[in-house]
Protein backbone atom coordinates (compact mmCIF):
# COMPACT_ATOMS: atom_id res chain seq x y z
CA UNK A 1 0.00 0.00 0.00
CA UNK A 2 1.32 3.43 -0.84
CA UNK A 3 0.16 6.98 -0.26
CA UNK A 4 0.41 9.51 -3.09
CA UNK A 5 0.28 13.20 -2.24
CA UNK A 6 -1.60 15.35 -4.74
CA UNK A 7 -0.17 18.90 -4.82
CA UNK A 8 -1.27 22.20 -6.29
CA UNK A 9 0.52 23.49 -9.39
CA UNK A 10 -0.58 27.04 -8.63
CA UNK A 11 -1.26 29.71 -6.04
CA UNK A 12 -5.01 30.19 -5.93
CA UNK A 13 -8.12 29.00 -4.15
CA UNK A 14 -10.30 25.91 -4.11
CA UNK A 15 -13.37 26.46 -6.26
CA UNK A 16 -15.11 23.12 -5.94
CA UNK A 17 -14.33 19.62 -4.75
CA UNK A 18 -15.68 16.93 -7.05
CA UNK A 19 -15.03 13.85 -4.88
CA UNK A 20 -15.27 12.74 -1.26
CA UNK A 21 -13.02 10.70 1.00
CA UNK A 22 -13.42 6.99 0.29
CA UNK A 23 -14.21 7.44 -3.42
CA UNK A 24 -12.36 5.20 -5.85
CA UNK A 25 -10.21 7.25 -8.25
CA UNK A 26 -8.53 6.46 -11.53
CA UNK A 27 -5.49 8.26 -12.95
CA UNK A 28 -6.70 11.42 -14.67
CA UNK A 29 -9.99 11.74 -12.72
CA UNK A 30 -10.69 15.31 -11.66
CA UNK A 31 -10.64 15.44 -7.84
CA UNK A 32 -11.17 19.17 -7.43
CA UNK A 33 -11.01 22.44 -9.38
CA UNK A 34 -8.92 25.36 -8.22
CA UNK A 35 -9.27 28.95 -9.31
CA UNK A 36 -6.20 31.01 -10.17
CA UNK A 37 -5.78 34.10 -12.37
CA UNK A 38 -9.49 33.83 -13.34
CA UNK A 39 -8.86 30.34 -14.69
CA UNK A 40 -10.23 27.02 -13.59
CA UNK A 41 -7.39 24.63 -12.84
CA UNK A 42 -8.45 20.98 -12.61
CA UNK A 43 -6.55 18.80 -10.15
CA UNK A 44 -6.25 15.32 -11.57
CA UNK A 45 -5.49 12.06 -9.79
CA UNK A 46 -1.87 11.05 -10.50
CA UNK A 47 -2.56 7.41 -9.54
CA UNK A 48 -5.34 4.82 -9.24
CA UNK A 49 -6.62 4.14 -5.73
CA UNK A 50 -8.93 5.54 -3.06
CA UNK A 51 -9.18 9.17 -2.04
CA UNK A 52 -7.93 8.79 1.53
CA UNK A 53 -7.74 12.36 2.77
CA UNK A 54 -8.92 15.81 1.68
CA UNK A 55 -6.79 18.55 3.19
CA UNK A 56 -8.69 21.53 1.74
CA UNK A 57 -12.28 22.68 1.27
CA UNK A 58 -13.95 25.14 -1.11
CA UNK A 59 -12.72 28.74 -0.80
CA UNK A 60 -9.50 27.72 0.98
CA UNK A 61 -6.40 29.50 -0.33
CA UNK A 62 -3.70 27.19 -1.63
CA UNK A 63 0.01 27.68 -2.33
CA UNK A 64 2.13 26.23 -5.10
CA UNK A 65 3.14 22.68 -4.12
CA UNK A 66 0.70 22.55 -1.19
CA UNK A 67 -0.66 19.04 -0.65
CA UNK A 68 -4.39 19.09 -1.41
CA UNK A 69 -5.35 15.47 -0.84
CA UNK A 70 -3.91 11.97 -0.69
CA UNK A 71 -4.59 8.81 -2.65
CA UNK A 72 -4.08 5.38 -1.14
CA UNK A 73 -3.17 2.67 -3.63
Amino acid at each position, binding site marked *: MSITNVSS*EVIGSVWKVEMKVGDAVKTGDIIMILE*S*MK*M*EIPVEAPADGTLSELKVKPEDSVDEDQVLCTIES
Partner: protein
Amino acid sequence: MSELEESETLDGRLTQLRALEERARQMGGKEKLARREAAGVMNARSRIDALLDPGTFSENGLLGVSTVFDEDRDKTPADGKVAGFGLIEDRMVGVVSNDFTVKGASSSMTNMKKIGHIKRTATDRGFPLIFLGESSGARMPDNMGSEGMGTMLGNDPHQYARERETPWVSAVLGQCFGSSAWYSCLADFTVMRKGGVLAVASPALASLAIGQTVDPEDLGGWKLHSEETGMVDRVVETDEEALVEIRKFLSYMPSHNGETPPVADVPAGSDEAAANIPQILPDSRKRGYDVRKIINCVVDQESFFEFKPRFGRAAVTGLARLDGGVVGVVANNPIAKAGALDVAGCEKVTRFLVMCDSFNIPIIMLVDTPGFVIGIEGEKKKAPGKIINFMTALQMCTVPKLSVIMRKSYGQAYLNMGGGRNSDSVAAWPTAEVSFMDPRYATDVVTWGRNASDAEKEAIREDMERNSTYLGLAQIFAAQSVIAPQDTRRYLIEELKIQHLRRSRGIGRHKLANWPTTF
Protein backbone atom coordinates in the same frame (compact mmCIF):
# COMPACT_ATOMS: atom_id res chain seq x y z
CA MET B 1 60.67 9.45 -8.23
CA SER B 2 63.86 7.89 -6.95
CA GLU B 3 62.58 4.48 -8.10
CA LEU B 4 62.60 5.77 -11.68
CA GLU B 5 66.19 6.87 -11.48
CA GLU B 6 67.29 3.57 -9.97
CA SER B 7 65.64 1.46 -12.66
CA GLU B 8 67.85 1.09 -15.69
CA THR B 9 66.15 -1.54 -17.85
CA LEU B 10 62.98 -1.07 -19.88
CA ASP B 11 61.34 -3.95 -18.02
CA GLY B 12 62.19 -2.33 -14.74
CA ARG B 13 60.77 0.98 -15.83
CA LEU B 14 57.62 -0.65 -17.21
CA THR B 15 57.08 -2.47 -13.93
CA GLN B 16 57.49 0.78 -12.09
CA LEU B 17 55.13 2.57 -14.50
CA ARG B 18 52.42 -0.05 -13.91
CA ALA B 19 52.85 0.39 -10.17
CA LEU B 20 52.54 4.17 -10.43
CA GLU B 21 49.47 3.86 -12.62
CA GLU B 22 47.89 1.40 -10.24
CA ARG B 23 48.55 3.72 -7.35
CA ALA B 24 46.99 6.69 -9.19
CA ARG B 25 43.86 4.63 -9.76
CA GLN B 26 43.51 4.14 -5.99
CA MET B 27 42.53 7.83 -5.76
CA GLY B 28 42.35 9.15 -2.20
CA GLY B 29 42.68 5.69 -0.66
CA LYS B 30 40.55 2.77 0.43
CA GLU B 31 39.06 4.40 3.51
CA LYS B 32 37.71 7.45 1.74
CA LEU B 33 36.37 5.34 -1.12
CA ALA B 34 34.70 2.93 1.31
CA ARG B 35 32.99 5.82 3.09
CA ARG B 36 31.55 7.04 -0.19
CA GLU B 37 30.40 3.58 -1.14
CA ALA B 38 28.68 3.15 2.23
CA ALA B 39 26.90 6.47 1.62
CA GLY B 40 25.70 5.26 -1.79
CA VAL B 41 27.83 7.82 -3.64
CA MET B 42 29.94 6.82 -6.64
CA ASN B 43 33.57 7.89 -7.03
CA ALA B 44 35.24 9.81 -9.84
CA ARG B 45 36.25 6.66 -11.72
CA SER B 46 33.10 4.60 -11.24
CA ARG B 47 31.15 7.59 -12.52
CA ILE B 48 33.18 7.64 -15.73
CA ASP B 49 32.78 3.87 -16.12
CA ALA B 50 29.00 4.16 -15.78
CA LEU B 51 28.80 7.20 -18.06
CA LEU B 52 30.77 5.93 -21.06
CA ASP B 53 30.24 2.97 -23.34
CA PRO B 54 32.06 0.06 -21.62
CA GLY B 55 35.83 -0.07 -22.12
CA THR B 56 36.08 3.13 -24.15
CA PHE B 57 37.75 5.48 -21.65
CA SER B 58 41.16 6.82 -22.77
CA GLU B 59 42.61 8.60 -19.78
CA ASN B 60 44.92 11.61 -20.07
CA GLY B 61 47.06 12.74 -17.16
CA LEU B 62 46.80 9.62 -15.02
CA LEU B 63 50.26 10.33 -13.61
CA GLY B 64 49.63 14.04 -13.08
CA VAL B 65 50.25 15.19 -9.52
CA SER B 66 50.66 18.42 -7.63
CA THR B 67 54.23 19.66 -7.84
CA VAL B 68 53.91 23.02 -6.12
CA PHE B 69 54.95 21.51 -2.79
CA ASP B 70 57.16 18.42 -2.90
CA GLU B 71 55.27 16.67 -0.11
CA ASP B 72 52.07 16.76 -2.22
CA ARG B 73 53.50 14.64 -5.04
CA ASP B 74 52.58 11.43 -3.24
CA LYS B 75 49.24 12.70 -1.95
CA THR B 76 47.64 13.81 -5.20
CA PRO B 77 46.84 10.86 -7.49
CA ALA B 78 45.80 12.21 -10.91
CA ASP B 79 45.86 15.56 -9.11
CA GLY B 80 42.22 15.15 -8.11
CA LYS B 81 40.64 15.43 -11.53
CA VAL B 82 40.27 12.34 -13.71
CA ALA B 83 40.22 13.38 -17.35
CA GLY B 84 40.08 11.84 -20.79
CA PHE B 85 37.99 10.81 -23.75
CA GLY B 86 35.52 8.06 -24.51
CA LEU B 87 32.35 7.12 -26.34
CA ILE B 88 28.67 7.56 -25.59
CA GLU B 89 26.49 5.62 -28.01
CA ASP B 90 29.57 5.36 -30.24
CA ARG B 91 30.12 9.12 -30.34
CA MET B 92 33.26 10.78 -28.90
CA VAL B 93 33.03 12.90 -25.74
CA GLY B 94 35.54 14.55 -23.41
CA VAL B 95 35.16 14.00 -19.67
CA VAL B 96 36.51 15.66 -16.53
CA SER B 97 35.48 13.83 -13.37
CA ASN B 98 36.33 15.53 -10.10
CA ASP B 99 37.87 13.25 -7.47
CA PHE B 100 36.81 14.71 -4.15
CA THR B 101 38.92 12.14 -2.26
CA VAL B 102 42.08 13.92 -3.44
CA LYS B 103 42.34 17.30 -1.76
CA GLY B 104 38.64 17.93 -2.38
CA ALA B 105 39.32 17.97 -6.15
CA SER B 106 40.59 21.50 -5.62
CA SER B 107 41.85 23.36 -8.68
CA SER B 108 45.61 23.25 -9.02
CA MET B 109 48.41 23.88 -11.44
CA THR B 110 48.43 20.41 -13.03
CA ASN B 111 44.74 19.58 -13.02
CA MET B 112 43.81 22.92 -14.60
CA LYS B 113 46.12 22.01 -17.48
CA LYS B 114 44.23 18.73 -17.74
CA ILE B 115 40.86 20.50 -17.93
CA GLY B 116 42.27 22.93 -20.50
CA HIS B 117 43.52 20.09 -22.68
CA ILE B 118 40.23 18.18 -22.67
CA LYS B 119 38.24 21.34 -23.29
CA ARG B 120 40.49 22.51 -26.12
CA THR B 121 40.49 19.11 -27.81
CA ALA B 122 36.71 18.73 -27.54
CA THR B 123 36.18 22.20 -29.00
CA ASP B 124 38.76 21.93 -31.80
CA ARG B 125 37.85 18.39 -32.82
CA GLY B 126 34.11 18.86 -32.40
CA PHE B 127 32.65 16.75 -29.61
CA PRO B 128 30.78 17.35 -26.35
CA LEU B 129 32.42 18.07 -23.02
CA ILE B 130 31.14 16.62 -19.76
CA PHE B 131 32.05 17.89 -16.29
CA LEU B 132 31.18 15.62 -13.40
CA GLY B 133 31.25 18.24 -10.66
CA GLU B 134 32.29 17.80 -7.06
CA SER B 135 35.03 20.20 -6.05
CA SER B 136 35.95 22.55 -3.26
CA GLY B 137 37.47 25.46 -5.20
CA ALA B 138 41.02 26.71 -5.55
CA ARG B 139 43.70 24.64 -3.79
CA MET B 140 45.28 26.11 -0.70
CA PRO B 141 47.95 27.08 0.16
CA ASP B 142 49.01 26.82 -3.50
CA ASN B 143 46.87 29.83 -4.44
CA MET B 144 47.67 31.96 -1.43
CA GLY B 145 49.59 35.19 -1.62
CA SER B 146 50.30 37.34 -4.62
CA GLU B 147 52.71 34.84 -6.13
CA GLY B 148 50.21 32.03 -5.61
CA MET B 149 47.46 34.02 -7.28
CA GLY B 150 49.68 35.24 -10.09
CA THR B 151 50.93 31.74 -10.81
CA MET B 152 47.89 29.56 -10.28
CA LEU B 153 44.63 31.22 -11.21
CA GLY B 154 43.69 31.96 -14.78
CA ASN B 155 46.60 32.32 -17.18
CA ASP B 156 44.13 31.29 -19.87
CA PRO B 157 42.27 34.21 -21.45
CA HIS B 158 39.78 31.82 -23.04
CA GLN B 159 39.07 29.69 -19.95
CA TYR B 160 35.49 30.84 -19.43
CA ALA B 161 34.65 32.09 -22.91
CA ARG B 162 31.54 30.20 -23.91
CA GLU B 163 30.95 30.12 -27.64
CA ARG B 164 28.87 26.97 -27.80
CA GLU B 165 30.97 25.28 -30.47
CA THR B 166 30.11 21.92 -28.90
CA PRO B 167 27.55 20.89 -26.26
CA TRP B 168 28.67 21.14 -22.65
CA VAL B 169 27.11 19.13 -19.87
CA SER B 170 27.59 19.46 -16.14
CA ALA B 171 26.51 17.27 -13.24
CA VAL B 172 26.32 18.56 -9.67
CA LEU B 173 27.20 15.40 -7.79
CA GLY B 174 28.27 16.77 -4.43
CA GLN B 175 29.71 20.02 -3.18
CA CYS B 176 30.34 22.22 -6.20
CA PHE B 177 32.28 25.39 -5.53
CA GLY B 178 34.84 27.06 -7.75
CA SER B 179 35.29 25.44 -11.16
CA SER B 180 32.47 22.91 -10.70
CA ALA B 181 30.08 25.79 -10.04
CA TRP B 182 31.37 27.87 -12.94
CA TYR B 183 31.15 25.01 -15.43
CA SER B 184 27.63 24.17 -14.25
CA CYS B 185 26.61 27.72 -15.14
CA LEU B 186 28.32 27.52 -18.53
CA ALA B 187 26.83 24.16 -19.50
CA ASP B 188 23.96 23.65 -21.93
CA PHE B 189 22.52 21.04 -19.61
CA THR B 190 23.03 20.72 -15.85
CA VAL B 191 21.73 17.80 -13.83
CA MET B 192 21.88 17.83 -10.03
CA ARG B 193 21.77 15.00 -7.54
CA LYS B 194 19.76 15.73 -4.42
CA GLY B 195 22.24 16.43 -1.63
CA GLY B 196 24.59 18.27 -3.97
CA VAL B 197 25.37 21.94 -3.38
CA LEU B 198 26.06 24.50 -6.10
CA ALA B 199 27.33 27.81 -4.76
CA VAL B 200 30.07 30.41 -5.05
CA ALA B 201 31.71 29.30 -1.82
CA SER B 202 31.23 26.58 0.80
CA PRO B 203 28.70 26.91 3.64
CA ALA B 204 31.68 27.02 6.03
CA LEU B 205 33.26 30.00 4.28
CA ALA B 206 29.89 31.72 3.89
CA SER B 207 29.24 31.22 7.61
CA LEU B 208 32.63 32.68 8.50
CA ALA B 209 32.18 35.63 6.16
CA ILE B 210 28.76 36.72 7.36
CA GLY B 211 28.86 35.39 10.91
CA GLN B 212 25.73 33.27 10.52
CA THR B 213 25.21 29.56 10.29
CA VAL B 214 24.39 28.79 6.68
CA ASP B 215 22.45 25.68 5.76
CA PRO B 216 23.96 24.02 2.64
CA GLU B 217 20.51 23.39 1.15
CA ASP B 218 19.60 27.08 1.57
CA LEU B 219 22.92 28.13 0.09
CA GLY B 220 22.82 25.96 -2.99
CA GLY B 221 20.57 22.92 -2.68
CA TRP B 222 18.40 21.27 -5.32
CA LYS B 223 15.24 23.11 -4.34
CA LEU B 224 16.92 26.49 -4.65
CA HIS B 225 18.31 25.73 -8.08
CA SER B 226 15.39 23.81 -9.56
CA GLU B 227 12.70 26.24 -8.32
CA GLU B 228 14.23 29.65 -7.58
CA THR B 229 17.34 30.19 -9.72
CA GLY B 230 16.59 27.79 -12.57
CA MET B 231 20.32 27.08 -12.90
CA VAL B 232 19.71 23.34 -12.82
CA ASP B 233 17.78 21.62 -15.62
CA ARG B 234 16.93 18.31 -13.99
CA VAL B 235 17.11 16.89 -10.45
CA VAL B 236 17.72 13.22 -9.68
CA GLU B 237 18.06 11.04 -6.59
CA THR B 238 21.28 9.17 -7.38
CA ASP B 239 24.59 9.48 -9.24
CA GLU B 240 23.54 6.65 -11.53
CA GLU B 241 20.39 8.51 -12.57
CA ALA B 242 22.41 11.67 -13.25
CA LEU B 243 24.67 9.77 -15.65
CA VAL B 244 21.66 8.29 -17.46
CA GLU B 245 20.25 11.82 -17.85
CA ILE B 246 23.53 13.01 -19.41
CA ARG B 247 23.48 10.20 -21.95
CA LYS B 248 19.85 10.96 -22.74
CA PHE B 249 20.50 14.71 -23.19
CA LEU B 250 23.40 14.01 -25.55
CA SER B 251 21.23 11.69 -27.64
CA TYR B 252 19.40 14.84 -28.83
CA MET B 253 22.53 16.85 -29.54
CA PRO B 254 24.86 17.06 -32.52
CA SER B 255 28.52 16.49 -31.65
CA HIS B 256 29.27 20.08 -32.66
CA ASN B 257 27.56 23.14 -34.11
CA GLY B 258 28.52 22.26 -37.68
CA GLU B 259 26.29 19.18 -37.60
CA THR B 260 22.56 18.59 -37.35
CA PRO B 261 21.28 16.49 -34.42
CA PRO B 262 21.07 12.72 -34.87
CA VAL B 263 17.85 11.27 -36.30
CA ALA B 264 16.17 8.34 -34.53
CA ASP B 265 13.56 5.76 -35.42
CA VAL B 266 9.95 6.79 -34.85
CA PRO B 267 8.32 4.73 -32.08
CA ALA B 268 5.08 2.90 -32.85
CA GLY B 269 1.94 4.84 -31.97
CA SER B 270 3.51 8.26 -32.57
CA ASP B 271 1.17 9.17 -35.41
CA GLU B 272 -1.96 8.04 -33.58
CA ALA B 273 -1.59 10.05 -30.34
CA ALA B 274 -2.53 13.41 -31.89
CA ALA B 275 -6.12 12.17 -32.21
CA ASN B 276 -6.38 12.58 -28.41
CA ILE B 277 -5.75 16.34 -28.38
CA PRO B 278 -9.43 17.37 -28.61
CA GLN B 279 -10.13 15.41 -25.42
CA ILE B 280 -7.31 17.21 -23.58
CA LEU B 281 -8.21 20.71 -24.71
CA PRO B 282 -11.10 21.89 -22.47
CA ASP B 283 -14.24 23.26 -24.08
CA SER B 284 -14.28 26.22 -21.73
CA ARG B 285 -11.72 28.92 -22.47
CA LYS B 286 -11.54 29.48 -18.71
CA ARG B 287 -10.45 25.92 -17.97
CA GLY B 288 -6.74 25.22 -17.53
CA TYR B 289 -4.96 22.08 -18.70
CA ASP B 290 -1.43 20.72 -18.61
CA VAL B 291 0.12 21.56 -21.98
CA ARG B 292 2.65 18.73 -21.52
CA LYS B 293 -0.18 16.32 -22.32
CA ILE B 294 -0.64 18.03 -25.67
CA ILE B 295 3.12 18.07 -26.35
CA ASN B 296 3.22 14.32 -25.71
CA CYS B 297 0.46 13.82 -28.27
CA VAL B 298 2.31 15.86 -30.91
CA VAL B 299 5.91 14.62 -30.63
CA ASP B 300 7.27 11.10 -31.10
CA GLN B 301 6.14 8.90 -28.24
CA GLU B 302 8.29 9.01 -25.08
CA SER B 303 10.61 11.55 -26.71
CA PHE B 304 9.81 14.70 -24.68
CA PHE B 305 12.77 15.60 -22.43
CA GLU B 306 11.73 18.54 -20.29
CA PHE B 307 14.10 21.25 -19.04
CA LYS B 308 13.63 23.00 -15.68
CA PRO B 309 10.18 21.47 -14.95
CA ARG B 310 9.92 23.16 -11.54
CA PHE B 311 11.15 26.62 -12.59
CA GLY B 312 9.05 29.23 -14.41
CA ARG B 313 6.25 26.71 -14.77
CA ALA B 314 4.00 28.94 -16.87
CA ALA B 315 6.43 28.11 -19.68
CA VAL B 316 7.41 24.60 -20.69
CA THR B 317 10.66 23.93 -22.55
CA GLY B 318 12.12 20.65 -23.70
CA LEU B 319 13.77 18.68 -26.45
CA ALA B 320 11.75 16.14 -28.37
CA ARG B 321 11.64 14.30 -31.66
CA LEU B 322 9.22 14.85 -34.48
CA ASP B 323 9.21 12.11 -37.10
CA GLY B 324 12.65 11.15 -35.77
CA GLY B 325 14.26 14.61 -35.99
CA VAL B 326 15.10 16.71 -32.94
CA VAL B 327 13.03 19.81 -32.14
CA GLY B 328 12.97 22.25 -29.23
CA VAL B 329 9.50 22.78 -27.81
CA VAL B 330 8.48 26.05 -26.14
CA ALA B 331 4.93 26.11 -24.79
CA ASN B 332 2.77 28.11 -22.43
CA ASN B 333 1.23 26.05 -19.66
CA PRO B 334 -2.26 27.24 -18.68
CA ILE B 335 -2.15 25.05 -15.57
CA ALA B 336 0.40 27.45 -14.04
CA LYS B 337 -0.44 31.17 -13.75
CA ALA B 338 -2.98 30.61 -16.54
CA GLY B 339 0.02 30.41 -18.88
CA ALA B 340 0.95 34.05 -18.20
CA LEU B 341 4.70 34.49 -18.70
CA ASP B 342 6.63 35.77 -15.69
CA VAL B 343 10.30 36.69 -15.26
CA ALA B 344 11.29 33.10 -14.54
CA GLY B 345 9.40 31.88 -17.59
CA CYS B 346 11.14 34.46 -19.81
CA GLU B 347 14.59 33.46 -18.54
CA LYS B 348 13.80 29.80 -19.04
CA VAL B 349 12.61 30.26 -22.62
CA THR B 350 15.47 32.61 -23.55
CA ARG B 351 18.14 30.23 -22.37
CA PHE B 352 16.45 27.38 -24.21
CA LEU B 353 16.23 29.36 -27.47
CA VAL B 354 19.94 30.14 -27.23
CA MET B 355 20.77 26.46 -26.90
CA CYS B 356 18.48 25.35 -29.74
CA ASP B 357 19.80 28.00 -32.10
CA SER B 358 23.41 27.19 -31.25
CA PHE B 359 22.99 23.53 -32.10
CA ASN B 360 20.75 23.65 -35.18
CA ILE B 361 17.57 22.52 -33.44
CA PRO B 362 14.31 23.83 -34.99
CA ILE B 363 11.89 25.50 -32.56
CA ILE B 364 8.21 24.66 -32.12
CA MET B 365 6.10 27.13 -30.15
CA LEU B 366 2.72 26.08 -28.76
CA VAL B 367 0.82 29.17 -27.70
CA ASP B 368 -1.85 29.63 -25.04
CA THR B 369 -1.04 32.70 -22.96
CA PRO B 370 -3.06 35.64 -21.70
CA GLY B 371 0.15 37.73 -21.81
CA PHE B 372 2.96 38.68 -19.47
CA VAL B 373 2.47 38.84 -15.73
CA ILE B 374 2.45 42.50 -14.76
CA GLY B 375 2.95 44.06 -11.34
CA ILE B 376 5.55 45.34 -8.91
CA GLU B 377 7.13 41.96 -8.18
CA GLY B 378 8.05 41.43 -11.81
CA GLU B 379 9.28 44.98 -12.31
CA LYS B 380 11.66 44.56 -9.37
CA LYS B 381 13.12 41.58 -11.18
CA LYS B 382 13.63 43.53 -14.42
CA ALA B 383 10.55 42.18 -16.22
CA PRO B 384 10.83 44.55 -19.22
CA GLY B 385 14.46 43.51 -19.74
CA LYS B 386 13.61 39.83 -19.48
CA ILE B 387 10.75 40.16 -21.96
CA ILE B 388 12.88 41.97 -24.52
CA ASN B 389 15.80 39.54 -24.01
CA PHE B 390 13.39 36.76 -24.91
CA MET B 391 12.13 38.76 -27.90
CA THR B 392 15.64 39.60 -29.13
CA ALA B 393 16.73 35.99 -28.77
CA LEU B 394 13.76 34.77 -30.78
CA GLN B 395 14.35 37.29 -33.57
CA MET B 396 18.04 36.37 -33.74
CA CYS B 397 17.38 32.63 -33.94
CA THR B 398 18.19 31.43 -37.44
CA VAL B 399 16.90 27.87 -37.09
CA PRO B 400 13.37 27.18 -38.39
CA LYS B 401 10.71 28.51 -36.01
CA LEU B 402 7.10 27.34 -36.15
CA SER B 403 4.30 28.72 -34.00
CA VAL B 404 0.92 27.13 -33.32
CA ILE B 405 -1.69 29.34 -31.65
CA MET B 406 -3.81 26.88 -29.73
CA ARG B 407 -5.92 29.27 -27.71
CA LYS B 408 -5.02 32.65 -26.22
CA SER B 409 -2.30 34.89 -27.58
CA TYR B 410 -2.41 38.41 -26.18
CA GLY B 411 -0.39 41.61 -26.33
CA GLN B 412 3.40 41.57 -26.51
CA ALA B 413 3.33 37.85 -25.71
CA TYR B 414 1.75 37.33 -29.16
CA LEU B 415 5.05 38.56 -30.63
CA ASN B 416 7.26 36.69 -28.15
CA MET B 417 5.49 33.46 -28.98
CA GLY B 418 6.09 33.77 -32.71
CA GLY B 419 3.20 35.96 -33.93
CA GLY B 420 3.75 39.03 -36.12
CA ARG B 421 6.39 37.36 -38.32
CA ASN B 422 8.46 36.27 -35.36
CA SER B 423 8.33 32.73 -36.64
CA ASP B 424 8.69 31.30 -40.11
CA SER B 425 5.12 30.09 -40.18
CA VAL B 426 2.10 30.49 -37.92
CA ALA B 427 -0.75 28.01 -37.71
CA ALA B 428 -3.90 28.67 -35.72
CA TRP B 429 -6.34 26.20 -34.25
CA PRO B 430 -10.03 27.16 -34.64
CA THR B 431 -9.93 27.82 -30.89
CA ALA B 432 -7.32 30.60 -31.30
CA GLU B 433 -8.12 33.90 -29.61
CA VAL B 434 -5.86 36.85 -30.39
CA SER B 435 -6.03 40.46 -29.27
CA PHE B 436 -4.10 43.19 -27.53
CA MET B 437 -5.85 42.71 -24.19
CA ASP B 438 -9.15 41.61 -22.68
CA PRO B 439 -11.86 44.10 -23.89
CA ARG B 440 -12.98 44.80 -20.30
CA TYR B 441 -9.45 45.82 -19.29
CA ALA B 442 -9.08 47.83 -22.47
CA THR B 443 -12.24 49.80 -21.61
CA ASP B 444 -10.97 50.54 -18.12
CA VAL B 445 -7.56 51.58 -19.44
CA VAL B 446 -8.89 54.17 -21.91
CA THR B 447 -11.39 55.58 -19.39
CA TRP B 448 -8.87 55.60 -16.51
CA GLY B 449 -8.95 58.75 -14.36
CA ARG B 450 -12.18 60.24 -15.66
CA ASN B 451 -15.84 59.68 -14.82
CA ALA B 452 -17.08 57.84 -17.87
CA SER B 453 -20.76 56.89 -17.76
CA ASP B 454 -21.81 53.27 -17.94
CA ALA B 455 -23.33 53.91 -21.35
CA GLU B 456 -20.07 55.39 -22.65
CA LYS B 457 -18.10 52.48 -21.23
CA GLU B 458 -20.44 50.01 -22.84
CA ALA B 459 -20.02 51.73 -26.20
CA ILE B 460 -16.24 51.65 -25.83
CA ARG B 461 -16.31 48.00 -24.82
CA GLU B 462 -18.30 47.16 -27.95
CA ASP B 463 -15.66 48.95 -30.04
CA MET B 464 -12.92 47.02 -28.28
CA GLU B 465 -14.61 43.69 -28.80
CA ARG B 466 -13.37 43.26 -32.32
CA ASN B 467 -13.05 39.93 -33.97
CA SER B 468 -10.50 37.98 -31.94
CA THR B 469 -10.88 34.64 -33.68
CA TYR B 470 -8.70 32.55 -35.96
CA LEU B 471 -10.60 33.90 -38.94
CA GLY B 472 -9.23 37.41 -38.50
CA LEU B 473 -5.69 36.02 -38.47
CA ALA B 474 -6.34 33.87 -41.52
CA GLN B 475 -8.03 36.60 -43.55
CA ILE B 476 -5.14 39.04 -43.21
CA PHE B 477 -2.57 36.24 -43.59
CA ALA B 478 -1.20 36.74 -40.04
CA ALA B 479 -1.64 32.97 -39.81
CA GLN B 480 -0.41 31.01 -42.79
CA SER B 481 -2.55 27.97 -41.95
CA VAL B 482 -5.56 27.04 -39.88
CA ILE B 483 -5.46 23.46 -38.70
CA ALA B 484 -7.49 21.09 -36.56
CA PRO B 485 -5.71 20.26 -33.28
CA GLN B 486 -5.50 16.59 -34.22
CA ASP B 487 -3.63 17.53 -37.44
CA THR B 488 -0.91 19.42 -35.55
CA ARG B 489 1.69 16.67 -35.69
CA ARG B 490 1.22 16.10 -39.39
CA TYR B 491 1.28 19.86 -40.05
CA LEU B 492 4.51 20.38 -38.10
CA ILE B 493 6.28 17.50 -39.84
CA GLU B 494 5.35 18.86 -43.26
CA GLU B 495 6.10 22.48 -42.38
CA LEU B 496 9.54 21.52 -41.02
CA LYS B 497 10.31 19.95 -44.38
CA ILE B 498 9.39 23.23 -46.08
CA GLN B 499 11.43 25.34 -43.67
CA HIS B 500 14.50 23.07 -43.66
CA LEU B 501 17.71 25.10 -44.07
CA ARG B 502 18.64 23.59 -47.42
CA ARG B 503 21.25 26.18 -48.37
CA SER B 504 23.32 25.36 -45.31
CA ARG B 505 22.37 21.68 -44.94
CA GLY B 506 20.45 22.36 -41.75
CA ILE B 507 23.11 24.52 -40.07
CA GLY B 508 22.01 27.85 -38.57
CA ARG B 509 24.07 31.04 -38.25
CA HIS B 510 24.48 30.77 -34.46
CA LYS B 511 24.03 34.45 -33.76
CA LEU B 512 23.26 33.65 -30.12
CA ALA B 513 26.19 31.33 -29.60
CA ASN B 514 28.20 33.68 -27.42
CA TRP B 515 25.36 35.12 -25.38
CA PRO B 516 26.03 34.98 -21.65
CA THR B 517 24.70 31.85 -20.02
CA THR B 518 22.91 33.49 -17.09
CA PHE B 519 21.31 36.85 -17.76
